[in-house]
């Protein structure tokens, strides 16, 4: 089947899915949704696998109303990589969601709509990867944004959720505005709406601005620094399977877009690379510093997504620097690290969101200060969260280390091939940034895991938490299996990534096979070392077991330093754990306290409340003031939208008049 036919079939499967979802009883809706997602995933995975093995899948759709008429449908290895990631994460999300939504069974209509938008969400993300034609691309992009918005506001009765949803919608449309401007400029420049025609404009000296427009459009989706403010609101508000999929793949589509446009650049690689590299280091640091101090575990995970986008961006910037300095090995390490991290992050972040979702379902709180000791009641979930936490910190034995290793190798190679002092200093600062990001992510994930799952329960919960159901745990087993396969056989995945880089960046000079061989052997060594380390651990445990077998093992309470009445609330909390860190980075994460001063007239003590919170510096001091000014100015134009049909008719008249005058005086051609 040709790939354009596949697009049509997916459309029909989606429409069929809507009909099926609306006729079946509530009980089977989740099943239908899973089936539709799986069918669409299979349909699109087959050409993707072919594309990954080197056969670019091309097809055309004929839409005579659109400029250009012929719509190219294309799955090359880059889009295939993203499509496979989308499919994997979406299937897992659907499986997890079918269990997660069981506790919302009373919201019957919500759930039906939720599943309809879920299958639309899945297929629109895939369409985004397939279409080259600007208008169709934008339509798919818009479908994706709208459907994910509907998924985010699942609990729309909750005001905070609705607010987060509106915030998300506005920011996504800002992204669309930038992309649309980019496409229109592209059309006037080249006469074609195809994204791939970017390659032919770039010789002009203003082409960099088209690139900037596209970059901002995609960066809003990806969550690069000043455009990140939607993430920490949307992720916590969405149901957990949706946050898992959103964090796992929807932000990656921004990365996909950036990959696409940088593959069409054919000049100024070096400076663009340096800009992206600096921006990404700052993004990563800002994200993880905020993640370390947040009390809301889903918010913390959302900030951590920003961090990982930064890490991916470091790889992209490094890759561009590699192309710019004619040093293909740096380019391969950079792009390879970035692409592998896209996969890795989609795995461990969805794992973390799923296991965090299980916790939320059982405890109905996102505040870590109210949790504790969950490892005893939810051991499997705790295990999965720990796996995700170790992997996201880039620790060895897990997949995160592989991509971070590639990035470090690339950065160190970049150091050696330095051209000029500023470049070397930028690279060494990026290394410092990446190291600090690793260290801070250990702080934030020891905090999250330690406070949520270890110790004693800090508050009394409504009901005793139980282990999540099998259908919720099942996708997490699959994710962990795939994560470990990357950690133990990285050379296999790196080989595919290498093919993608080959075909996406034809500008790369002839590849140096010896050095690639060295990277491959290093990765193989790391894979083997992980196995050996596990063997070493096993030996150590066996020795310990044999030694301790016959000895006296007793248990008693935790030593309280002589204090005889310890209460669970006196345990170290998330706030106290991150306090000294927060003070150290007080210029980024500012703590505010919420309390009323005791008035002098108050004779008898009453019950009082005291709370602290950290706010997002950029949102408060950059984005919000700007928004306030804009809405203040926009107030003056409110008279235009006055609700009177008569004036709207007049506007039409004005428009016709302007067009008429314009043509008469040859202002419009």
């Amino acid at each position, binding site marked *: 089947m040709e790939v354009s036919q596949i697009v049509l079939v997916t459309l029909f499967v989606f429409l069929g899915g809507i009909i099926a979802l609306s006729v079946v009883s509530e009980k089977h809706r989740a099943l239908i949704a899973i089936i539709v997602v799986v069918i669409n995933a299979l349909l699109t995975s087959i050409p993707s696998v072919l594309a990954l093995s080197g056969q670019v899948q091309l097809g055309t759709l004929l839409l005579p109303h659109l400029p250009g008429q012929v719509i190219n449908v294309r799955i090359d290895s880059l889009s295939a990589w993203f499509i496979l990631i989308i499919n994997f994460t979406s299937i897992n999300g659907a499986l997890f969601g079918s269990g997660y939504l069981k506790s919302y069974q009373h919201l019957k209509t919500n759930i039906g709509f939720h599943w309809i938008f879920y299958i639309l969400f899945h297929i629109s993300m895939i369409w985004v990867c397939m279409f080259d034609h600007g208008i169709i691309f934008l339509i798919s992009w818009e479908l994706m944004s709208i459907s994910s918005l509907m998924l985010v506001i699942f609990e729309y009765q909750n005001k905070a959720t609705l607010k987060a949803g509106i915030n998300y919608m506005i920011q996504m449309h800002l992204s669309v505005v930038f992309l649309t401007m980019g496409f229109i400029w592209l059309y006037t420049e080249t006469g074609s709406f195809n994204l791939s025609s970017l390659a032919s404009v770039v010789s002009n000296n203003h082409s960099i601005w088209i690139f900037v427009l596209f970059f901002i459009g995609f960066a809003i989706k990806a969550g690069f620094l000043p455009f990140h403010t939607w993430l920490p609101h949307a992720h916590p508000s969405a149901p957990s399977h949706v946050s898992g999929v959103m964090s796992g793949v929807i932000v990656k589509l921004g990365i996909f877009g950036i990959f696409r446009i940088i593959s069409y650049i054919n000049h100024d690689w070096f400076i663009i690379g340096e800009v992206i590299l600096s921006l990404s280091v700052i993004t990563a640091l800002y994200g993880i510093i905020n993640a370390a101090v947040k009390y809301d575990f889903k918010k913390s995970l959302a900030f951590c997504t920003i961090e990982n986008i930064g890490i991916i961006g470091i790889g992209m910037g490094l890759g561009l620097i590699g192309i710019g300095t004619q040093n293909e090995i740096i380019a391969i390490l950079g792009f390879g690290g970035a692409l592998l991290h896209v996969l890795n992050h989609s795995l461990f972040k969805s794992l973390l969101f799923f296991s965090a979702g299980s916790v939320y379902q059982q405890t109905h709180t996102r505040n870590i200060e109210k949790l504790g*000791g969950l*490892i005893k009641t939810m051991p499997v979930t705790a295990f999965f969260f*720990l796996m995700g936490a170790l992997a996201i910190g880039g*620790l*060895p*034995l897990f997949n995160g*280390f592989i991509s971070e*290793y590639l990035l*470090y190798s690339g950065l*160190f*190679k970049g*150091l*050696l091939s*330095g051209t000029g*002092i500023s470049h*070397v200093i930028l690279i*060494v600062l990026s*290394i*410092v940034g990446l*190291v*600090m990001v*690793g*260290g*801070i992510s*250990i*702080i934030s994930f*020891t905090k999250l*895991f*330690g*406070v949520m799952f270890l*110790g004693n329960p800090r508050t009394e919960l409504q009901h005793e938490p139980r282990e999540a159901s099998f259908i919720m745990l099942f996708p997490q087993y699959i994710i962990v299996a795939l994560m470990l396969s990357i950690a133990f056989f990285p050379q296999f995945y790196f080989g595919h990534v290498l093919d993608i880089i080959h075909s996406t960046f034809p500008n790369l000079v002839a590849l140096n096979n010896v050095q690639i061989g*060295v990277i491959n052997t*290093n990765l193989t*060594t*790391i894979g083997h*070392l992980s196995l050996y*380390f596990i063997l*070493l*651990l096993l030996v*150590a445990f066996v020795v*310990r077991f044999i*030694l*301790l077998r016959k*000895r006296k*093992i*007793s*248990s*008693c309470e*935790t*030593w309280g*330093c002589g204090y005889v009445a310890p209460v669970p609330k*006196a*345990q*170290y909390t998330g706030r106290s*754990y*991150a*306090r*000294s*860190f927060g003070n*150290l980075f007080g210029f980024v994460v500012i703590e505010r306290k919420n309390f009323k001063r005791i008035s002098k007239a108050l004779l008898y003590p009453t019950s009082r409340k005291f709370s602290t919170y950290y706010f997002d510096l950029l949102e408060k001091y950059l984005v919000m003031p700007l928004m306030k000014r804009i809405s203040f100015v926009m107030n003056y134009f409110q008279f235009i939208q006055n609700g009177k049909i008569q004036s709207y008719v007049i506007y039409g008249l004005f428009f016709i008049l302007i067009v008429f005058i314009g043509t008469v005086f040859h202002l419009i051609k």
Partner: protein
Amino acid sequence: MLSFLLIILVSIFFMGLVIRTKSLASGRKGPGILQPMKDIVRLWKKGSVYSTTTSIIFRIAPTVYFSSIIMAILMIPHGNQPGIISFGGDFVLFAYILALGKFLMIISALDTGSSFEGMGASREALFSMLVEPAFFIIMGSLALFTGHTSFYDMFSVLNYGSYISYLIGALSTFVLILIAMIENSRMPVDDPKTHLELTMIHEVMILDNSGFDLGVILYCTPLKFAMYGALIANFFIGSLPLQISLPLFFAIQIVFAVTVGILESFMARFRMSHNPQFIFILTSVSLLIFFGVLLVLGKFI
């Protein structure tokens, strides 16, 4: 293999030397060189008491911590003899595998549900995060200096040409000594001998460990010291033949142990809130090293 055996050998008497130096500095005779190791072996023969609050994490963490350090030691070369594990960029694995052990120790401290141990865990996480950049900048400078990215290649190529490169070696040694002190929670940042839980870092994390597990954790300290000592020794061994490098190795380790003892005898512990500044100094000194390397290579334009 040679380097691994040497480090294990040194780890047996390292703490004894430190304690002996401290005793002599304070005018006492002090225990035998092997006394700290005997204490650890005595702990290895004991059973354990576990807190009822703890979970499996608490039981596996010390063993993982120990194994991670063993794994890291396997990567350290001895002059022109490569470590058992050696590949391009192995120092990244070195730093990250140590971080894996630390991660487990931190969460095992949180596992006890004690506020003291949580405090220690928080400090340990913060300080080791702050130390890490200094190590990576030194490794980056060495990589830039030698053009290689694995421990073995860097150290076997390392040879000093100009005066500035001696300065680089001296500064790197200084930074590595202090990194070792911080990683092992020794004097300028932490005092393992203090008896006030509020002022401790590493010791307060392991308040609840006992018996075998405590022995394993305590043995990790001399192991880590010997490991950093071996790294420092590698700065000076270069590609000397074995008959010179072996005595040099032991001499450097002994000098290192005595230095640690002297530092601990004559320095007061910093106030906890001043520790971050102190650790940041390490990063800036390592940046100095980096600029020194740039100077040597003539990259300052």
